[in-house]
């Protein structure tokens, strides 16, 4: 639901990843992390909600 809402206000699909991983699923965690970092790298830096903190 949140992902759909974010896309609706103009965030790229894939900017947010949410996945259910149990503590015993080390390999799934590692591969998910690889997927997420690849995805984020391919999207480039986020430009939304990036105002400077004064």
């Amino acid at each position: 639901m949140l992902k759909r809402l974010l896309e609706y206000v103009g965030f790229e699909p894939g900017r947010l990843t949410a996945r259910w991983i149990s503590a015993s699923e080390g390999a799934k965690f590692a591969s998910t992390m690889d997927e997420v970092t690849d995805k984020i790298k391919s999207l480039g830096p986020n430009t939304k909600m990036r105002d400077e903190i004064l």
Partner: protein
Amino acid sequence: MMNLTKQIREQAKKLLEEKKVDLVIGFGQGTELARTTPVFIDSPEGVSALTWGPFCANNLAKYLVDYKNAPGNVAIVVKGCDSRSVIRLLDDNQISRDKIVVIGVPCAGQLEWQKVADEVKPDATLKETVDNGDSFVVKTSTGDHTFNKKDYMLHRCLVCENPNPVIADFTIGEELPVKNYAERFAEVEELEQLGLEEKSAYWDKQFSRCLRCYACRNVCSVCTCELCVFDQMKPMWVSKRTNLSENTVFHITRAFHVAGRCVDCGECDRVCPMDIPIRKLNQKIHKDLKDLFDSPTPGSKEGLLSALGEFSLGDPEEFM
């Protein structure tokens, strides 16, 4: 609609005289012809302040929260959409059923007061309003005006799901048929069709205008946290700076905090001084909840669980 006003007054008077309630919350004539104001009546003599017509857009349900710890009972006048708020407040344990008396009024629609005010002379006084099915006739001291519902009603009324209250101890007047003048999610679908950058630009333009006055939160009958994340200082979840970035956080968070409980009353949208189309965020969530979980509008039935607060094995799992 004089007749309905009379019946509401009679009902209120009876409740106060018989001491069934100590207070009646309803609509009273406002300072302008096309506006009403909430009135709080505590004596049988006061009921003449109550009125009814196509200018009763306010959802009064949130006031019930103010009286939840007060001694005595409270009666409230509700329309169809407001009644969903009453159910949600009951289901959220914000109010108790035995302390409230619901006076339900089947609602023929509410007009946008600005549009009406544009056409009526500023010094005119209201004589009577008549519901003619697809239009209202507003009779004033300077002449009669006809307002087509399709062009003058609030958007929420064009797509009204239940003009008849879904919870009521007393119903005033006859039940009305459901009549829609627009597709419920047409505006959301239009936005969904836009490209990513267009969507982003559209919402940036809206969010950047937000004053963070929090009127949208304060009016909302499902925003009932005593300590709201937007007010909290330690930790400061959301900064109080008013800029596009923080406003975007505010809007996404607000919309998501009411997801699954928002009754689609449209009040947040109506009260926004900056005309930010807040309801289009809530409606996106309503649409997704319908598509993904086939869930009915929150508050449309008693005892419904919040769509995001219940789990079933058949739920779609986009995150496994």
